[in-house]
């Protein structure tokens, strides 16, 4: 029996009550990035070299920032919202008095945060299609892959959820990990601009692999080393999930 399912449904039911403001936030912010940087900065930059191709900066940015949106949506949900349910509202404690294990709850939260990123990504892709930024049929594949990106970052965030004493703790995760990562992963500018040492470091970042996997699909190309990038994201997800689960079980075991 899928015991995580009623927990996932619970989150969905709460979300349905707040769906409109939540979706507006999910769409509006990435759109502002696109308008401000894509059109504004894009006019200055013109085109960006991508392998042998030259692509408009707007397309370059859109294909990177959709990965960032998947990451952010999953991260926010698996940090702030999951922490509220786990620690502040004690929702998890209530659920564990029913025949549901803590591991079922962690799985439900992981899948829920990934689902939130799928919702955000769907809305953003729809807007990008509407604006005519890309018409690539391969976006159909980018869509489930971005859900996978959401899974990876949801697993990573749940590690920090398990370790948190309060909301302030998450500032470290954002300031010391996510924000630098967005600048090093080729979302805003090609990684080739980075000094060699930093470039090498950027190879290790999960967001780098997400961008390398998704971006070519926007240009109607198949990604080079697509399986490798997907494999790295999967490995990050599996390892992070196991750590997150172990730390959460430890947190609740006293």
């Amino acid at each position, binding site marked *: 029996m899928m015991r995580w399912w009623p927990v996932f449904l619970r989150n969905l039911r709460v979300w349905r009550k707040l769906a409109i403001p939540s979706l507006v936030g999910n769409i509006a912010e990435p759109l502002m990035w696109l308008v401000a940087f894509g059109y504004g900065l894009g006019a200055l930059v013109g085109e960006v070299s991508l392998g042998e191709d030259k692509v408009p900066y707007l397309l370059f940015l859109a294909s990177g920032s959709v990965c960032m949106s998947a990451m952010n949506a999953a991260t926010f949900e698996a940090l702030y919202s999951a922490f509220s349910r786990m620690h502040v509202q004690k929702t998890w*404690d209530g659920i564990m008095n029913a025949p549901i294990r803590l591991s079922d709850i962690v799985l439900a939260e992981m899948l829920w945060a990934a689902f939130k990123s799928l919702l955000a990504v769907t809305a953003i892709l729809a807007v990008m299609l509407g604006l005519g930024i890309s018409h690539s049929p391969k976006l159909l594949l980018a869509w489930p892959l971005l859900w996978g990106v959401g899974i990876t970052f949801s697993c990573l965030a749940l590690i920090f959820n398990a370790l948190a004493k309060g909301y302030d703790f998450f500032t470290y995760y954002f300031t010391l990990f996510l924000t630098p990562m967005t600048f090093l992963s080729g979302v805003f500018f090609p990684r080739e601009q980075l000094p060699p040492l930093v470039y090498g470091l950027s190879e290790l970042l999960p967001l780098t692999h997400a961008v390398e996997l998704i971006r070519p699909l926007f240009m109607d190309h198949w990604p080079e080393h697509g399986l490798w990038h997907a494999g790295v994201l999967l490995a990050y997800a599996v390892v992070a999930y196991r750590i997150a689960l172990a730390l959460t079980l430890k947190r609740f075991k006293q």
Partner: protein
Amino acid sequence: MTAPYLVCEHLVKSYGDARVVDDVSFSIAPGECLGVIGPNGAGKTTTLRMCLGLTAPDSGEVRAFGLHMPADALAIKQRLGVVSQFDTLDPDFTCAENLEVYGRYFGLSQASLKERVGPLLSFAALSHKATAKPGELSGGMKRRLSLARALINNPELLLLDEPTTGLDPQARHLMWERLQQLLQQGKSILLTTHFMDEAERLCDRLLLLDHGKKMVEGTPRALIDAHLEPDVVEVFGPGALALMQAPLASLAHRVESSGDTVFFYTSEAAPLLQALSAVPGLRTLHRPANLEDLFLKLTGRQIREDA
């Protein structure tokens, strides 16, 4: 005799050097209400957590409905109702939704939930609040909603951790009335409480814990009879404390003081009362010994460090 619903055998749990639960054994028969009483930090909540499989005992065993905790935790919880010390209601849902969502955790279908939610809200005297959210409820209403939520799976055994702490007398009496109804329906209840009147009123049997150890176990009446003199005379006022050394103290079996009040425990109150009436300026209260006296006798009158 039918097999007990819940059996705990020789439970031991330590955190670091502190032995929080130390060789505690008890059982609950079908239809029985067992009260676990004890000062703060006595090990009540830890014992309850072990019954729920949330905390693993260092040694000892918990069995419920013939199944083993924690190996069969899910099957056991399918038949349990739990009200924890602090409400874990969902603030985003209405009262009715809280029950529905919780019922889903037990795998209940939409159809059976529809049948159960209305009567449970009415049982909790919350029918008029079905569409209100927990934030709009009073403390007593929240506790009753928690109780209704714990009943959604029609459990045979209820575990209630301090169900009336923080409630005003009206709300507390309503809660007691509902718990008595559940006992009449044949449900079993394990209850922890700080309130001796609650324990005396609801519980068939009591378990007194202190420092993680079981001090005594038995029916409220039998415990009082076994450990206390039947009468208590409380004396306060100027010079009351000096009476502890006065000759009239020999008229009581036992004399205790707390603050400025002196407690005389006796089986023959009349001569003592007569002797006391000769001392001017004293105020006396003559009453039968109760569970609170027993509790204080066995656990002491000092305030606990963590209280």
